[in-house]
């Protein structure tokens, strides 16, 4: 079972949580200044450190198309081959929940993912990085911490992302602005993962600082901040749907109908429909009134909603807007959505 096939906690708001730990090997130039021999040296060092672990090793430039598609489906890679140089290596575990990227933007990037809101990903990534640190000579200074090529990655080297869908907050005047300011207070950031993502209420909440705060501090700040955002979003959804139940019930049914039966679907249309579903489904989960459930002969789980959202966002983050607008792409996307919905039937 892949990592995104779990429902996860608070999955009505948080689609997935990711932690990334960056490390560089001492005595070797950083990626922008590396030569072939340096790349080979880093690969050999990491190979020896990873020996014996149950992870699949994939050499960049030698990954076949089937595997590439699977990596994209598992959100390990965003675009087909575009970011893979022949000097890079990917280690991935059985569920693609923990991946190690070698010679990408840094020598080593450990990435742990989980569906829903799960800050334990930070501990998993950090623990795995510690294991590598015990076997490798990692660049470190007492003044700046872990030294990396990107100055924004210098310090703890730990970054946490939570992908959230907050249509309730977005439909409130200045809602996004308020959340953005709240993020800044915690030294976190609110960012749209791709162009027009904000229109569909999709955002990344990500930790910004790696200096002036410890790894556990980043995690604790994230826990408080994201919890606040989840609570706020739920309140907004209940208020919006409760204020006009008939309209949002209709939008819910229409959105489901379009997702299920439309033969051509554009990414933003899908994400907007999913946002409408989220708003009324949250209301429905909290309502005891039988009238709210009448004439709705279908069920859609949070897991399915998140799997479709994740897949569409992956496509939008990786592909060019022009490719996404092609008729064939719209047709294929509609088919994919139907496949996901079949699971709930």
């Amino acid at each position: 079972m892949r990592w995104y096939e779990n429902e996860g906690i608070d999955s009505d708001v948080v689609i997935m949580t990711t932690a990334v730990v960056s490390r560089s090997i001492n005595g070797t130039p950083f990626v922008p200044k590396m030569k072939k021999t340096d790349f080979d040296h880093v690969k050999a060092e990491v190979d020896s450190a990873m020996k014996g672990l149950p992870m699949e090793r994939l050499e960049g430039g030698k990954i076949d198309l089937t595997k590439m598609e699977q990596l994209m489906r598992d959100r390990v890679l965003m675009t087909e081959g575009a970011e893979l140089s022949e000097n890079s290596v990917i280690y991935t575990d059985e569920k693609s929940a923990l991946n190690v990227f070698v010679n990408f933007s840094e020598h080593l990037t450990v990435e742990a993912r989980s569906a829903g809101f799960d800050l334990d990903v930070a501990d998993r990534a950090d623990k795995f990085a510690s294991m590598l640190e015990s076997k490798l000579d990692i660049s470190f200074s007492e003044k700046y911490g872990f030294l990396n090529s990107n100055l924004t990655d210098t310090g703890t080297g730990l970054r946490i992302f939570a992908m959230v869908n907050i249509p309730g907050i977005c439909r409130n005047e200045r809602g996004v602005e308020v959340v953005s300011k709240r993020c800044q207070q915690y030294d976190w950031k609110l960012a749209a993962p791709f162009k027009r993502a904000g229109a569909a209420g999709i955002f990344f909440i990500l930790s910004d600082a790696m200096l002036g705060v410890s790894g556990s501090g980043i995690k604790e700040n994230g826990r408080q901040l994201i919890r606040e955002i989840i609570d706020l979003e739920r309140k907004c959804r209940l208020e919006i749907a409760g204020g006009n139940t008939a309209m949002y019930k209709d939008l819910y049914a229409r959105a489901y109908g379009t997702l299920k039966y439309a033969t051509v679907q554009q990414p933003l249309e899908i994400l907007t429909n999913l946002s409408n579903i989220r708003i009324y489904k949250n209301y429905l989960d909290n309502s005891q009134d039988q009238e709210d459930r009448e004439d709705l002969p279908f069920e859609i789980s949070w897991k399915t909603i998140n799997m479709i959202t994740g897949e569409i966002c992956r496509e939008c983050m990786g592909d060019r807007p022009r490719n996404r607008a092609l008729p064939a792409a719209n047709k294929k996307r509609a088919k994919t959505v139907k496949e996901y919905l079949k699971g709930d039937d």
Partner: protein
Amino acid sequence: MICSKCGGYVPENDLRIFNGSVMCANCFEEMCQGKIGKSMDDFFNLPLEKKAGMIFNMSNLDFGNSALTCPKCGTSLKEIETEKRVGCIECFNTFGNAISKILLKEQGSTEYLGRTPAKYDPEAKADIKTDEIKDILDPKVSAAAEEDKGSLTAEDKIEQIKNDFYEGKIADLPDEELKEALAAAVAAEDYILAAKIRDELNNRKEGGNDEVV
């Protein structure tokens, strides 16, 4: 800014620019008095367009520091300032002050509060066991979820096992759990589900023909 004549520090509100060079007020005055270089008359005698060009291009002036490069990887200060990336560890020594400024601007602090690498931390090193790493690679259900599972009623259990069937998760459940679910399904008289669980248990056995119920 640094004075191009005496090398002293020039505050931004007190700098003088002449022929593309930054000067402090003293050097500028001395130059005007003819002690250093040419007199200001040369500047005033230039055509108007040239004078205007010199004034408007002040932002493009090279103040000398950007020519500094890392002796090990050849990265220049200008590259670091524009790309926010360094080429090697030596860059941190060569451009220490500039990097501190960038870090302060980008991250709001230059103070490191994290842990030391596991290699230099005997406690952390002793803490890492191969089994634990294998656990990381195969994360178990969180403690909270385990607790929830424990407190499920018979009805919830049946509902959960039904969901597991539809989601194809049934293969992941241990035999003990399936047997418990089977008992619950029989008690609740849900014989369709009971038959499905029985078939799954039978399939797991060698040959798949042994009857459980």
